[in-house]
């Protein structure tokens, strides 16, 4: 269980850095989605199932949809 925690946290940090480094905004949004899903699993491991539910629904679902809909109305690649 300890090892799983460490792997997930490392993946979280890698995701956070990758979101910042990516030039393509749509890819950045998808990586941010992976970040939210990892965070939901981590909340579950921290024994907070209600926060995990909210994170999975809002962070991984709705935020991604809102970002994608905003990107579809603006530019996709950062200048």
């Amino acid at each position, binding site marked *: 269980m300890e090892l799983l925690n460490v792997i997930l946290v490392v993946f979280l940090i890698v995701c956070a850095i990758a979101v910042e480094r990516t030039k393509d905004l749509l890819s950045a949004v998808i990586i941010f989605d992976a970040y939210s899903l990892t965070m939901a699993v981590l909340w579950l491991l921290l024994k907070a199932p*209600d926060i995990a*539910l909210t994170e999975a*629904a*809002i962070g991984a*679902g*709705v935020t991604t*949809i*809102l970002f994608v*809909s905003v990107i579809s*109305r603006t530019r996709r690649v950062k200048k």
Partner: protein
Amino acid sequence: MDNLIVKTITRLIVPFIQIYGIFIILHGHISPGGGFSGGAVLGASMILYTLSYGLTAANKKLPHKVTGVFESGGIIWYVLLGLVGIFLGGSFLSNKEVGFFMGKAGDVISGGFIPLITAAIGLKVASTMITLFHTIIEED
């Protein structure tokens, strides 16, 4: 977005998502969950419907007027529940002291005004997300 597979799967899966959301809201005081999580699931189901069937069909199913009523009705219902406490001789938002129906711990209908407040929050969160999404993707 005229895709037969997406439309069929959406039509099959949306009722189950909505039942799960209502389950989370109604059992907010018994099992993990509550107003915010259940409302998010409910809103996500309606967003899925909008994505696969288009904005006009979704607006016909759930017009802006209805979401507006949920939007302001949820918070007014919350404040009214708090004022009931004052009228019955307690303080603002007091539960057990002013004699809400408590029931047996573990039943669905128990816990005073907790299920009522959870339902209000759930409807409000769901309508907030739907309104936000519809407003953003609206063509101009």
